[in-house]
């Protein structure tokens, strides 16, 4: 590796721009290339990103001597882009925005493919880097609420409230776009889960827009998820959990964590209490934390979480939800 890590970003939508900007301020990174299909966007990028090569196809980056590539294209294209990067040896370290791919079969194939490369890989489940969810994870590790028996999770936004379903189709459905964050956190908090029922929140909904589903684990833990991007009052997307244990409860969302014990003791932590500042803040502090951890892992050649293998379990859960919802909607 050269002194600075040479990194490229593929797909310059919202996520691509945010990651590119942050990579540009991380001291030991050289943002080397950007790849974007839209010619209008490429023309704008040429003005904004100085000394960075702009291309329209990943295979054109083969000779760029890249240490890592970020894939921030729409979810449905992740599989093809990652395969092309691996096949052409564009770079061996990969970061991909969530979700890893669009189905468990593709996820399995990519895990296999990348397991041979000895590179670092990571999936952008941003909420693991929120200080509130990190605090909740620490409380669970400390067994602050004893043995966990159940949880309720939600992932809501008002992004598509009042809009037709055809507007949302390109984003791969609410489960992949937003619900995946709650699923990833649940897997991080509680380990493997299995879906046993799923249905749209109301009769008029499609599961692509809003869905409720229930899960269990092998120790008898019960979990319920409610996911919608047509919820009222959620100006910004929000994810949250109520976790019930033998000694009390943990309530956590994007903004705060509340621990309530059966002995009456209550404690709350806001972002303010949890060292939320970062060296460079763009949009949210979590983006810098996430990119910094990936870069350090590549630099030190150590595995990082969430990686392709752990994130493929999110794709598996989403697939189970789709299957269960389909079964329950089939006339008997």
């Amino acid at each position: 590796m050269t002194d600075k890590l040479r990194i490229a970003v593929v797909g310059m939508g919202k996520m691509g721009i945010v990651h590119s900007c942050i990579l540009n301020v991380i001291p030991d990174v050289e943002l080397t290339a950007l790849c974007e299909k839209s010619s209008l966007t490429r023309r704008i990028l040429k003005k904004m990103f100085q000394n960075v090569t702009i291309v329209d196809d990943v295979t054109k980056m083969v000779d760029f001597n890249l240490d890592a590539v970020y894939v921030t294209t729409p979810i449905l294209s992740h599989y093809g882009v990652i395969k092309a990067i691996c096949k052409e040896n564009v770079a061996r370290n990969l970061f991909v925005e969530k979700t890893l791919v669009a189905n468990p079969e593709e996820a399995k194939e990519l895990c296999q493919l990348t397991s041979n490369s000895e590179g670092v890989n990571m999936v952008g489940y941003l909420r693991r880097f929120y200080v509130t969810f990190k605090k909740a994870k620490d409380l669970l590790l400390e067994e602050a609420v004893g043995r966990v028996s159940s949880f309720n999770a939600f992932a809501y936004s008002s992004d598509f409230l009042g809009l037709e379903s055809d507007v949302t189709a390109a984003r791969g459905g609410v489960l992949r776009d937003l619900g995946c964050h709650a699923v990833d956190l649940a897997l991080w908090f509680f380990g493997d889960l299995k879906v046993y029922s799923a249905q749209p929140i109301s009769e008029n909904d499609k599961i692509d827009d809003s869905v409720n589903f229930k899960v269990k684990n092998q120790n008898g833990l019960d979990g319920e998820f409610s996911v919608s991007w047509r919820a009222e009052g959620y100006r910004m997307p929000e994810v949250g959990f109520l976790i019930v244990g033998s000694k009390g409860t943990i309530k956590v969302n994007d903004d705060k964590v509340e621990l309530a014990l059966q002995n009456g003791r209550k404690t709350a932590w806001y972002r303010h209490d949890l060292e939320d500042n970062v060296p460079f803040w763009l949009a949210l502090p979590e983006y810098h934390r996430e990119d910094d951890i990936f870069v350090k892992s590549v630099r030190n050649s150590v595995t990082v979480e969430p990686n392709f293998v752990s994130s493929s379990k999110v794709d598996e859960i989403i697939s189970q939800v789709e299957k269960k919802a389909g079964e329950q909607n089939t006339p008997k």
Partner: protein
Amino acid sequence: MNRIHQSEKALLVGDNPFHNISHLSQERTRARGDNLADSSYAADLILTSVANGANGFMFSVSEKTLSILSAINKKGEIGRLNLYPIVPYAYEYVKLATQTGGIPGLAKRFSKQVVMSGNFRAVVNGIRGVVGMNPISLVKTYVAYEMSRIKSSAGKRAKIESIILHEIVTDMALALNLEWFFKGYIDFVSKTKVVPGFNTCNFAYLVNKLEEWEIDLSDVFIVAPFNSVGFQMNPSRTACEEALKGLKKPTLIAISILAAGYLKPEEAVRYIAGLPNVKGVAVGVSKEKHAVESFRLLNEALDKNL
């Protein structure tokens, strides 16, 4: 006329509560009720703040805030306020990009809006910007378009003191080291007799860069979080305070002084009053009681220090 050298302090009403924003907890905004959705109620809150010492309104340019300005104008009170618009209203554009499929969809929708506005200057700059892929021409188009929206709602007596670039634009340009963009923006806005402003979540980084590029900081406003718990003060409260001390003139308009409701007003004001180089503060209010208490307190405590 560039008004930045005037000794008047800027005590500004912020608009976050009118957009139902709380950086402490989204849960709290859902519990606030619907009063704040009413433009007339919001206009009355701003005028109550003015009666208690506020002299300006800092706002993102949106349909919501434009209707508030229109309500104040109809009451014949718009002349009592200095306006500090923040552009663009990032939330609206990010949501549009989400719904229209990214940058190309957003560009198409925005071009249509500019043409429909009938603002000749904006259209000409827009064509120049697209043909030559000139980002500064595109910014000129955008600012001209937003100015025309503000004036059509707030009326001819509206006093626009500053046009402030939203943190997402400032911080992206900062991350990309775009010296020409900062210089071009300052040059363009200054020519319109308005003070150029930059909203940032990276105060120390921005100050250091602007100094490195030899930009005269006495000719701009920097809008950034400052509070005693260091909330959103990146990379740290200490680094931001050091950068503030190094300024030659009052340039800072402090926001998030209450750390999104985490601090008591007295505690928050005490901290701000002890800082050097503060040109003003912006505080959101959601109730009449808050409007009276907050601005009386700010007016008394900051009078001697600004």
